[in-house]
């Protein structure tokens, strides 16, 4: 392969040709690009290449080490699965945008300096918005606009941080930064926005469900995991991440349980999953970091699988509202099976991929002595089972029969889902290849009696509770009080507390927002008065007045200097 060519660029540059190729050839070409990227990736040796100077700073477009290779690999695998999943469509915009977007994320993973990172960072934002706009309706346009503003905003904050950092240290190397001063804090916030930290997360649930069938699958893979990579690179062992991550794992659980749109449920659960990784990065011990990174790896696959299955339902039925679905296993048996594989993986059933990585993170947290965080994560694990593991397949494919009959998903979708499902099981049964890729040496055995037993206990009790609630009719989709958990206290007390906090929080937020909006409106009126087409600053001024200004300026200059 060509020396020193970053694998991401193969996808980005390759995307240019996409609109010009006819049907079959285009499909082959689309499939070939990620494969080429993969070949290029495996031809690379560890080290820094493709360096160039700009503004007196050294840019490194290709920095190959264990961390970047893990993320690069999974991004390329996903890009490949996504291409298969999207083969049935004939939409050059989406295909090209997905390629550029994937390529930008892969490019970002391999850069070795912050300026190049910024460029790819913005490129992921700009290219991905087209996947949302490709739905071609007003809602998607607006959601995409909001998404774009937030994403580009993250880039601007990143750039500000980078400039400050370069000013302060003279270095733009993208290595461990640590949260030490304003510059790194800005960079941290920029990463946090993309990583959907609590209160910075709304863009995800807002935008992802509005994207196209294929678009959501593509979106779910890259943006947030790129942020996870960036955090793992720059801020490992930053303690605040532990608390941020812990909150991230918990709060989406409640939203996800009461949400009716199943793709939005998945978006919430995505948030929850990111929390596990963020905690792992925050703990920062080799075991925890390995846990976070491997979790990101398998998570991308099973999350994509779940989004794919919901996408297939949306493609065939036209809706993913839990209240309108049900009984689809008769029509789409294969999709149902694949969805359940994804669900089992995300719930960390033994023999599925989630199990071998989530337990790694949990062990890391426990070993480092964060007991409360550990408990929170265990609670959140049960929550995952509830909303992603059971709710998604149950309401879509089982529950009451909605009477919907449709065809099984298209063949290409089934192939993509099948491959993803295979990977989920393969890595669950045989995690050694994954462990071997991780940046730190792993001597961890997931399948010990205690691991398996405790996980099964957790899962079975959560399932039992679900079953009981369904039997007794206590689990309607719109009732928020059905957050099942391992412990009765949590089940009763915490939701109430959270509900109360949410109500108060919402009231405060609404108050602040309303006041802010009023202020903004007043300010806009003022601005329009002065700057608008008829405003004093935009009016055609008479010559006399202009001359007055001239005289005034002259007087000011003379006065300033005489005094």
């Amino acid at each position, binding site marked *: 392969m060509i020396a020193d060519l970053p694998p991401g660029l193969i996808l980005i540059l390759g995307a240019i040709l996409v609109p010009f190729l006819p049907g079959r050839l285009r499909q082959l070409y689309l499939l070939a690009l990620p494969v080429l990227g993969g070949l290029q990736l495996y031809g690379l040796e560890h080290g820094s290449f493709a360096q160039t100077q700009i*503004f007196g700073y050294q840019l490194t477009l290709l920095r190959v080490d264990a961390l970047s290779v893990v993320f690069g690999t999974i991004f390329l695998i996903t890009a490949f699965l996504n291409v298969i999943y999207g083969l049935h469509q004939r939409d050059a915009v989406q295909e090209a945008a997905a390629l550029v977007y994937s390529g930008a994320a892969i490019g970002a993973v391999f850069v070795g300096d912050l300026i190049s990172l*910024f*460029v790819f960072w*913005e490129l992921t934002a700009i290219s991905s918005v087209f996947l949302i706009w490709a739905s071609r309706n007003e809602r998607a*346009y607006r959601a995409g606009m909001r998404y774009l503003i937030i994403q580009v905003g993250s880039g*601007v904050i990143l750039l*500000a941080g980078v*400039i400050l950092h370069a*000013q302060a240290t003279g270095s733009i190397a993208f290595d461990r930064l640590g949260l030490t001063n304003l510059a790194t804090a800005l960079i941290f916030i920029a990463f946090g926005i993309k990583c959907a930290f609590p209160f910075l997360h709304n863009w995800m649930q807002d935008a992802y469900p509005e994207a196209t069938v294929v678009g959501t699958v593509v979106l779910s893979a890259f943006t947030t995991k790129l942020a996870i990579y960036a955090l793992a690179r720059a801020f490992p062992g930053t303690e605040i991440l532990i608390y941020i991550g812990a909150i991230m794992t918990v709060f989406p659980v409640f939203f996800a349980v009461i949400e009716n749109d199943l793709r939005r449920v998945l978006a919430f659960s995505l948030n929850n999953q990111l929390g596990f990784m963020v905690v792992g990065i925050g703990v920062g011990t080799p075991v925890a970091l390995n846990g976070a990174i491997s979790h990101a790896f398998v998570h991308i696959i099973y999350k994509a699988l779940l989004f794919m299955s919901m996408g297939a339902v949306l493609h065939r039925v036209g809706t993913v509202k839990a209240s309108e679905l049900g009984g689809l296993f008769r029509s789409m048996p294969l999709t149902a099976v694949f969805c359940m594989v994804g669900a089992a993986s995300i719930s960390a059933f033994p023999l599925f991929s989630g199990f071998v990585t989530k337990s790694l993170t949990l062990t890391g947290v426990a070993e480092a002595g964060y007991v409360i965080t550990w408990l929170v994560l265990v609670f959140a694990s049960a929550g995952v089972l509830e909303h992603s593991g059971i709710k998604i397949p149950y309401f879509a494919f089982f529950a009451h029969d909605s009477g919907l009959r449709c065809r099984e998903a298209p063949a290409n979708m089934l192939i993509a889902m099948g491959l993803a499902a295979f990977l989920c099981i393969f890595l669950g049964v045989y995690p050694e290849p994954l462990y071997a890729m991780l940046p730190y040496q792993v001597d961890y055995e997931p399948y010990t009696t205690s691991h398996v037993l405790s996980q099964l206990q957790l899962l079975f009790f959560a399932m039992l509770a679900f079953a009981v609630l369904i039997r007794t009719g206590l689990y309607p989709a719109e009732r928020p009080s059905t957050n099942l958990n391992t412990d009765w206290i949590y089940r009763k007390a915490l939701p109430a507390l959270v509900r109360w906090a949410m109500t108060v929080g919402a009231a405060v937020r609404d108050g602040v927002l309303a006041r802010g909006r009023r202020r903004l409106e007043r300010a806009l009126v003022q*601005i*329009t008065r002065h*700057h*608008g*087409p008829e*405003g004093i*600053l*935009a009016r*055609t*001024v008479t*010559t006399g*007045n*202009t*001359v007055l*200004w*001239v005289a005034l*300026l*002259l007087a*000011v*200059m*003379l006065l*300033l*200097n*005489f005094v």
Partner: protein
Amino acid sequence: MIAAHLPALQIVLPLAAAPLCLLLRRGTLAWALALAASWAALVCAALLLRQVLISGPISYELGSWAAPWGIEYRVDAVNGFVLLIVAAVGAVILPYARTSVAHELPEEQHATFYTAFLLCLTGLLGVTITGDAFNLFVFLEISSLSSYVLIALGRDRRALTAAFQYLVMGTIGATFIVIGVGLLYMATGTLNMMDLAERLPPLAGNRTVLVAFAFLTVGTGLKLALFPLHFWLPNAYAYAPSVVTGFLAATATKVSVYVLLRFFFTVFGVGYSFEVLSVGKLLIPLAAIAILVCSTVAIFQNDVKRMLAYSSIAQIGYMIMGIGFATTTGLTAGILHLFNHAMMKGGLFLALGCVFLRVGSVRLEALHGLGKRMPLTMFSFVLGGLSLVGVPLTVGFISKWYLVQAALERDDWILAVVVLVGSLLALVYVWRVVEAAYFKPAPEGAAKVEEAPLSMLIPTWVLIGASIYFGIDTSLTVGVARQAAAQLIGGAS
């Protein structure tokens, strides 16, 4: 032989061609002559800059009269660069002018147009090349008078009032400059800039010199549309013919900025201008206000030409800010933006000229759905707009990068933020155009619109292409700008 007379040829060629254009009468012939003259001027400018970069400043004594008494033409890295900008824009715009002028002006005015155009070019080149303060005023008047004519040729009746107001204001500006030059002559007894630079330092406390400085600053400020002396500019740009707007936006204000540079740094010296008189304290706030206020005003404009006119005032703010810093980085940013803004704003106005040719209006409503109907034109506009915003890989980014660096060097946070906020505001007004062109459907029953002819598209894309190319390969622009800045800061050279 000829090489030795390049500085004179630079001026004489377009100057001699101008009356010939009038005599030729036929529009096409006049155009061909003007084209030839402008390309010759470009060749001269390129050769001059090359010579300067290789072997240092060139001094040329006009008519072999020795310097302090005769008129001296003096080319160094600073004005060599500005000469190249002006000549290049002129040479790129003239091929474009033919179709656009044929469409916008009646047949009998064509020869007049090209005459005035060449005179304006001559004036601008002359202002740039001359090393004599009074000669500078003369050339400034040549360029101004001809630009009043050019603006008044606009088809809109309001062009006349706009030109009249510009005439009054421009004349006041020129008068201020001549008063300033006169006062300098009174104090020192010389008009040659180098000579002035030598004789002025001992007179630092002299009131006459100080008043001269104030008059020169305000007079030049008027010509370059320094906020709040900019009121003539929006109307003049909005109602002038498309070609004229493109040409003036890319060159006239830039040359005035150069004049300001020349007086501040060469004639008065950086120490006098910025330490004794601290003119920076006046310029920087005005520049900051210009960036914020005029960008905001631009957002509310519905006439895109007017929108870009206000954006020009804001962009001039960037240059003035860089100059106001009076540091090498700041000056580099200012001079760099001089070039970069000429490329992108010239390209943008030319793209608008294409729209005007096909649609007959440049109001936002008229642009609805044009993204599909005139894809090449609108795409060039989008690229130019991105450059205005300062997106990486465009020239706008490069200028802003240096400007922000210069601000941070002084630990001036607020100004760095002002620059970035200005970019955001630019994003808003550029987006309004993009939204109209790409996201609004074409009005029902709209006439079919073709893409603009190649003779107009190519010049537009040359400028837009330059604003992308120099955003990626900055070695020429940054190199020259840095050398020019070092020269200016280093004192008289």
